[in-house]
């Protein structure tokens, strides 16, 4: 049990697990901070944070009710729902998608056109892999001019540092600090969102039956999470400390704080002022883009994917 502080097991509190999209990295610091600060406890939630193995996997776990909540990226969630999984987003927190192309600064890449003739590492099956060609086209680059090689998630960073690839697809707020820390060299990224394609990012996912049976709990969860993000944004050092203490084998604190700082940027509180609140337009855009440019074959109907009720009162 990676996150629960022992004394939070107060009687009467609901034991709740949230399964992350990946092993803990800076993006998750607010959750640990919230646990440490007792934000969840105040909502009657005894939260356990569990590492995950990819967003798709996490969505499936939620669908099977092996876990109460999932922390998942939006495109895999959309795929899961369109293939029949009884899950909903109850609020996306990273409203700017973190998908990007990362590379060492000395590559001198500043725009998508610079990728022509380069080799880019990607992981088949993840969100970026499917949208990358469309994103290139959107920026006037013929996808055939960029060579994509396939590397699994764990091997991607090594492949980049080793020079096996010129750039990799990835979440820049997560990987860039890690790579910089490892290689000592500066890493730059072209976020897809900065070049014409913003897809919703990670957020909370719940099973439909959970939403029906215990909406109060879901609401409490969204509320506590939202508060945790807001508070963490203002107390980043404390949040990093909380995570370093609460998560087993978290990255180094320097990496964590870089990741957290980047995460806060992605909350995009201009469009929807509170973390966990989204607009229908954001959802429509994301779904439309997915359905036009990827294998996603679900309907473009935000309510099928997203339950807006929990973010409303934040």
């Amino acid at each position, binding site marked *: 049990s990676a996150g629960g502080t022992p004394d939070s097991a107060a009687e009467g509190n609901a034991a709740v697990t949230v399964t992350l999209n990946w092993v803990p990295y800076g993006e998750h610091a607010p959750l640990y901070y919230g646990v440490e600060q007792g934000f969840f406890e105040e909502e009657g939630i005894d939260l356990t944070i569990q590492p995950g193995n*990819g967003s*798709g996997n996490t*969505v*499936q776990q939620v*669908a*099977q009710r092996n876990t109460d909540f999932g922390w998942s990226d939006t495109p*895999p969630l959309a*795929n*899961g729902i369109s*293939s*029949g*999984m*009884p899950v909903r987003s109850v609020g996306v927190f990273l409203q700017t998608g973190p998908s990007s192309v990362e590379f060492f600064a000395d590559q001198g890449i500043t725009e998508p056109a610079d990728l022509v003739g380069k080799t880019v590492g990607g*992981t*088949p*099956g*993840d969100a970026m*892999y*499917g949208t990358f060609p469309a994103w290139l086209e959107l920026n006037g680059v013929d996808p055939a001019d960029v060579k*994509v*090689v*396939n*590397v*699994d998630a*764990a*091997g991607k960073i*090594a*492949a980049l540092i*080793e020079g*096996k690839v010129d750039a990799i697809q990835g979440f820049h707020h997560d990987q860039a600090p890690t790579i910089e820390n490892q290689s000592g060299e500066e890493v730059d990224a072209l976020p897809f969102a900065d070049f014409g394609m913003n897809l919703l990012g990670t957020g909370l996912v719940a099973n439909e039956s959970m939403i029906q049976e215990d909406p109060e709990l879901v609401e409490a969860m969204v509320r506590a999470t939202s508060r945790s993000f807001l508070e963490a944004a203002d107390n980043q050092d404390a949040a990093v400390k909380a995570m370093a203490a609460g998560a087993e084998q978290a990255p180094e604190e320097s990496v964590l704080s870089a990741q957290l700082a980047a995460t806060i940027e992605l909350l995009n509180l201009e469009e929807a002022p509170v973390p966990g609140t989204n607009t229908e337009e954001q959802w429509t855009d994301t779904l439309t883009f997915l359905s036009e440019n990827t*294998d*996603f074959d679900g309907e473009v109907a935000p309510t099928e994917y997203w339950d807006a009720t929990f973010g409303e009162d934040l």
Partner: protein
Amino acid sequence: MTTTEDLRADSSDGPPTATARATAKDTAVPGRGRTSAWGQAVRLADASWRPLVVLGLLFAGWWFVAWRELVPAYLIPSPGAVLETMVSERAMLLEHTWVTTVETVLGFVIAAVVGVATAVLLVYSKTAEKSLYPLILFAQVIPKIAIAPILVVWFGFGLTPKIILAVLIAFFPVVVSAVAGLRSVDPELLEMSATMGASRWRTFVKIRFPGALPQLMSGLKVAVTLAVVGAVVGEFVGADRGLGFVLLLASGNLDAPLLFADLILMSLIGVVLFVLVELAEHLLIPWHASRRGSVVLAAS
């Protein structure tokens, strides 16, 4: 009268049919001993109806589960959907299947050759045994999924890392079974060979190796199924072709029909290669005691 099977299975109190069968045989049955094409077809049908029934049942169960929606379709898609995917994507799937098959076969062959060679070294040299065995064991116990990324970084995205993985994963069963086989040769046969002044090489080729074949074949059968896994894991980690790559795509997109189609093809490669090794076994060691029952003894 009582059949060989009965004895092989130690039936001390066999079924009452044994007598009936015996009587039937006593009243000379005409047409016995036919080795005609028809007879062969009958035998083949007799040998294969049970597996086919089992497969049929499996399929029916799957179909039923999907039909009654006992399990959500995103976990287990309907056979129809899978079949549809297989048909509509056949060109793509065939190409990837071919890639994985090539990797698997190459990996298996290398593992078999290197594995047997290593086993020979271990058996013939105490020094080699004591120094190499720990290394081999070490190479075996390291989870291959863990070192796959390192291999990709070192050997790039081509065929090499997949074959290396297939070899690494298939190697150990070959070594263990070959060592066991080479060791369990009747010492008297070795003595006999020694009095013939046979060189080590000749003793190996004519006595130890054929004697080790039954055990070696067990190891090869395990190895060939593992080689498939090795190739797929290699494709998992870094590839743009092969069934492992398709698997990643399918599972990333939560495309259950494609995923199942892919799994079925992987399994098919394994099954086909396994059956080929079994065929080789039948050709190479028809003499082995474990086979005698089916070859010898028949009264007219």
